[in-house]
């Protein structure tokens, strides 16, 4: 790799993608995008205690259970990924 490669747009983007989870790219598909959004949302719910409490009231569960549920949903937030076309 040449020194100049480090500064071209692609490698900068790759750097960003590696550093910040969820940074998109041109070939991002609908599923990947949705998964990111969902994970971000769940992380936000878990981080904001009042929102967690709000959900807990709606579902009549304890706040601790609600937090656990959201964290569990981070695994497959949008169900199974679609089959890859190129495979």
């Amino acid at each position, binding site marked *: 790799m040449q020194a100049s490669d480090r500064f071209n747009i692609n490698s900068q983007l790759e750097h960003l993608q*590696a550093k*910040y*989870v*969820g940074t998109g790219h041109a070939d991002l598909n609908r599923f*990947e995008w949705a*998964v990111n959004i969902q*994970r*971000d949302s*769940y*992380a*936000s719910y*878990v*981080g*904001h*205690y*009042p*929102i967690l*409490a*709000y959900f*807990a*009231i*709606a*579902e*009549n*569960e*304890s*706040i*601790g*259970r609600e937090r*656990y549920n959201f*964290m569990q949903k*981070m*695994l*497959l937030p949008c169900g*199974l*990924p*679609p*089959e*890859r076309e190129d495979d």
Partner: protein
Amino acid sequence: MYLYSLTLQKATGIVCAINGNFSGGKSQEIVVARGKILDLLRPDDSGKIQTVLSVEIFGAVRSLAQFRLTGAQKDYIVVGSDSGRIVILEFNKEKNVFDKIHQETFGKSGCRRIVPGQYLAIDPKGRAVMIGACEKQKLVYVLNRDTAARLTISSPLEAHKSHTITYSICGVDCGFDNPIFAAIELDYSEADQDSTGQAASEAQKHLTFYELDLGLNHVSRKWSEAVDNGANMLVTVPGGGDGPSGVLVCAENFVIYKNQGHPDVRAVIPRRADLPAERGVLIVSAATHKQKSMFFFLLQTEYGDIFKATLEHDGEHVQELRIKYFDTIPVTSSMCVLKSGFLFAASEFGNHALYQFQAIGEEADVEASSATLMETEEGFQPVFFQPRSLKNLVRIDQVESLMPIMDMKVENLFEEETPQIFTLCGRGPRSSLRILRPGLAISEMAVSQLPGVPSAVWTVKKNLIDEFDAYIVVSFANATLVLSIGETVEEVSDSGFLDTTPSLAVSLIGDDSLMQVHPSGIRHIREDGRINEWRTPGKRTIVKVGSNRLQVVIALSGGELIYFEVDMTGQLMEVEKHEMSGDVACLDIAPVPEGRQRSRFLAVGSYDNTIRILSLDPDDCMQILSVQSVSAAPESLLFLEVQASIGGEDGADHPASLFLNAGLSNGVLFRTVVDMVTGQLSDSRSRFLGLKAPKLFSIVIRGRRAMLCLSSRPWLGYIHQGHFLLTPLSYEALEYAASFSSDQCAEGVVAVAGDALRVFTIERLGETFNETAIPLRYTPRKFVFHKKKSLIIIESDQGAFTAEEREAGKKEFFEAAGMGENGNNNGEQMENGGDDEDKNDPLSDEQYGYPKAESDKWVSCIRVLDPKTSNTTCLLELQDNEAAYSVCTVNFREKEYGTLLAVGTAKGLQFWPRRSLASGFIHIYRFVDDGRALELLHKTQVEGVPLALCQFQGRLLAGIGPVLRLYDLGKKRLLRKCENKLFPNTIVSVQTYRDRIYVGDIQESFHYCKYRRDENQLYVFADDSVPRWVTAAHHIDFDTMAGADKFGNVYFVRLPQDVSDEIEEDPTGGKIKWEQGKLNGAPNKVEEIVQFHVGDVVTCLQKASLIPGGGDSVIYGTVMGSLGALLPFTSRDDVDFFSHLEMHLRQEYPPLCGRDHMAYRSAYFPVKDVIDGDLCEQFPTLPMDMQRKIADELDRTPAEILKKLEEVRNKII
């Protein structure tokens, strides 16, 4: 429109709590995070929780941890917040503030997925801290101290792992070996790629140990092993000689002991016998208790049951893990075991509590153990138990919490001087209606009748050094009664006081003699019983007296002042006379300053509406130093020193200023600063207190002088955390008062009113509201008033059994346990609506929660409540999984029934896996029995959940899912008249004004609609361009709506004036444009005029005034149990002043936990036209030089700024 935002009641819910010795020394303290507030609490000697310090940090606290450097005496606080920074705080006992020791930035601000702040873990030896995010990032900071023994923090060491979700982290106690942190992690990278689902089903949580190599300054993954997939929490197990080290992994249904190179020791968590089989048991909070010889863990499940976990170990080898049922208390977010034998339980919802340990669960009880764990084909066999009453804990204090406020209305239902705030609070069996009144709560100690109507009361000590008062002296129209304070309070006649005359003043004079001033003279009673009488010259009488311990001034009729001093021998000597121009209305002398012979100032109020300050110095005795004219004749005067700035436990390290307070005959309290040297008066402020002229009395609160003002209601002026607060007391009008101190009651007040003598104490200083709670049965949803007389409350709960089923279940249990009688009692209690709060009830739902049912079961009731007697006059339980969601009163055009009640319900509602319901209904009830009871008229089936109901032009408007429909009353059911199905999602609020309808959509903000009667059509003419998840809505004026969204923002939208005019003038009312339809939206857009991030989910909004004759402000209530107000500014000058003050404070005094104030208030949308009063009110807590600097930039003095802040607060409450 510019608004001033002020929190009236700080959040009462608790996010997390930690305990330790933060001030050093022995006292056990608790630091709690209440969302955006950090509090330091301390249980006092009597076991009451006192708030020592409360700081608004303008950020969301997500985690807290405490640590102590080896050998240190004091704990530090680490805060994980949304600021993208780690902050270490130290409690400064002298100044009573949190000092920020370190603040290290590591990421972006906000609650993000990969920015740490969610989790904190501490090395038990205080050598390192780990801060983690939900995903990927974990940072380790090394803590150390420099040569000057100051805490140092290293640069961060990364322990990141991509595509990995973190569930919990904790420190591992490994003595003084390299620090180790444990984390529950899950790698999702393969599951995201594999479309067959194989990888996802094989995804396994791992317990990973991260080792911080202190020598290499490097963090490495040391060990990783698969762990139960239900794992959610880690608890540190003591090690390094105190225990086996390692961690407890709390998972759904299990607790597992794990350590590197140690086989798993697994025990099952006992289950409640009545728990449905599909439900798991999850540990939600944990606390560790560690003594020299033993340690144990308290683990609480999501149902509130606490288990004691103990480890049988032999050195580093753990043989057995036992989980024994301990007690059941309401579900907590955090528990703290204090070394002093207390358990602080920070409840998730409802009141927090302090418990004392009676035992530590040594007795036999239901127990699960790793040794007896049975594995069968269906998995591990659980152990069952029944919750029982408290055995190991006893509750000694409660801290009120409003969390969550579900609905709120401000109304003067009781026709008092100020309106009351009615809030629906709590959840499930712990829910309540709380009636809040601005003012301090008092607790009445004694009330006794007196033989006549007293005019005044005093208390006196016999000697200056006495701790307690010796006598209560009560004056009547023609007599004086002396009561001696001892074990009991009884009348005495040997006190030396003259009892055949009324008294004007009674006090301790000199070191040990008593003085009684009566109209015809002064009686001086020496300690040895000698009595000296000074008689007034001629036929003149004494009318007013002012005195302190060494000085006495009397005013004779006609206006002559005579000044006495106590000389070295304890004699009262006449010093000076002075003739005033007219009769004296009132007098006061400031107390003798410490180390001085006399106080320098005498204040004299005259009927010519003036107050004069006279000198008492021997050099210029009785010279007039200054004159102040006031709006009405002063009736009462009081000097009070105010140290209005933070510092020390509750006072100041700044010079105090002396205030002269005057109660004027027009009901105004007038306060002005007296220059300590010249006696000049300046910087006056006045406040209307009530319809009677305030009488001012000096009393003692928390060891300091405070002022009691008795007008048509009593007020207390006192210093709390650096602020001077003037707050009403929730008590009846009093005539005369004095401070009272005895063995039983250290800081009380004795007062007279009517013919009764009352002794009371003032509680919970610093609170804005005092509350009356009325318990409810289920989670309250909404309520309405009926005829300003009764409240109709709808309550509903998911996943609970109906009252009959619960009763049957309990009976069964009690019969099995042979406690039939108690069971019957309980049944009766159920029938009158669960109103009785019987603490000894063996299975009170309030303590244990309702038994869980399947999630598709609902219980609900409609309650008619008389708030005056707090009796439920009618309670209708809905049957068949029907739950009520909306309520309104409606007057249909046919006047046959008068006012009717409409209730929107849903049957069999389910949120999961997909939102579904059997059907919705709108019930119509008729009021019978003078509005005390309800009778069902009919029930109309609808296709969705009617979440919003509103009366409109003699008909009923209902928002049913995405449909807005107009109903008329029929004989058998409601009749559809008109509908609009074009709303985007679900209608959650409907409000009307004239012919406009304001509809709030759950996801798409407000829609402004019109109804055309001639064409019978509902159409939307304007909507919002911003997607807002509306949680609360309130109609402000014809064009304006106030709303709140799920993310904690409050906003106002307004239809532009020209658009509004156009629509009103257009004969079609803008309908043509609507019919053309553009991009599915409405033709006009409303404009956002106000936007503010509260930082807490706002659930209710109302426009109201909390003070008599005050302007309206918007009052809101939040999930975390806080109340706030948004007050519109009336002048441009004020806007300028406060926005500049806010700007300077932002610059000079950034928030404690590192979040930028402006960024916080603009977290989702840029803040618009709202000034943050909570920030402005931090001004007095600033160091004096900074206060001066900011004041200079604003061209004012610090005192003027304080006055401004006080003024604007007084406009709200």
